[in-house]
């Protein structure tokens, strides 16, 4: 069972309290963008074995969206962080680096 600590209400929420929101930190390409960028925005998703960044919503709880960094292979959770950010905070990156030296994900490492 996946358990994530909600950064907004401080509870350890199991996955039955949460709604998945798909991949995190996706940049929107809207009207005026190139076909390639638009296609990437709509359909291009990472499918890593290992470190991954996702959006989750504490649906049966405080209702807030937040981010989570976890390992898709072991289900180990590296940490959760606020929704109001374009990239993982340094503290989260450091935690991942401590456990998965040399990791990278899209433009982050």
């Amino acid at each position, binding site marked *: 069972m996946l358990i994530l600590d909600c950064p*907004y*209400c*401080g*509870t*350890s*929420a*199991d996955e*039955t*309290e949460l709604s998945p929101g798909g991949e995190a930190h996706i940049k929107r390409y809207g009207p005026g963008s190139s076909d390639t960028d638009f296609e990437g925005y709509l359909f291009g998703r990472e499918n890593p074995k290992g470190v991954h960044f996702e959006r989750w919503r504490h649906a*049966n*709880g*405080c*209702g*807030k969206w937040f981010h989570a960094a976890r390992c898709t292979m072991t289900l180990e959770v590296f940490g959760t962080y606020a929704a109001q950010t374009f990239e993982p905070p340094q503290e989260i990156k450091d935690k991942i680096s401590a456990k998965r030296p040399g990791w990278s994900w899209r433009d982050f490492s």
Partner: protein
Amino acid sequence: MSNSVSALNGENVKGFVQVSELGLQGMITLRANLSTPKVKKAIKDVTGVLVPKMRQILHDGDNSIGWMSPDELLILCPHSGAEAMVTALNDALGKTHALVINVSDARAMFAVKGADARDAMAKLAPTDFGMGFQPGEIRRSRLAQVAGAFWMVDQETFNVVCFRSVARYMFDVLAVSAEKGGEVGYF
């Protein structure tokens, strides 16, 4: 004026703990930036209760305030006074960006009472009902298939609130959890 009745008209059932629908209860949802002095003052002046901290529920006389999220509070008050309290809060908040709405008749409230109340609750919600959960804390979660919030009134009483539309389901699932023969004796 119509005759207000609660969702299940005070229905109650006794298993190894007692499950009761608590009748008419005033409830107000308030959304605002809870850290601003003006919002804090307005809430305290009108309700007599301080703005609660994360997952806290505070009581003063007939009024209680539960922390629902970083920008949302649930104010509990007598049903007959809810409308007046909404007006008073709106007046006190003035032009501050905020939402105050009387949700009394959109909700239902229950009590789960008895020495093994923690056991009855633990069958339904993915929450740690061990001794770390004490009066003064409010938790939003789900009970079986529906969303609900609950807090402890004392060591053997939980109050549960949910949407009125799922009141029947909530009562029935609490009643099943509390059935005699279903004692767990864990907590």
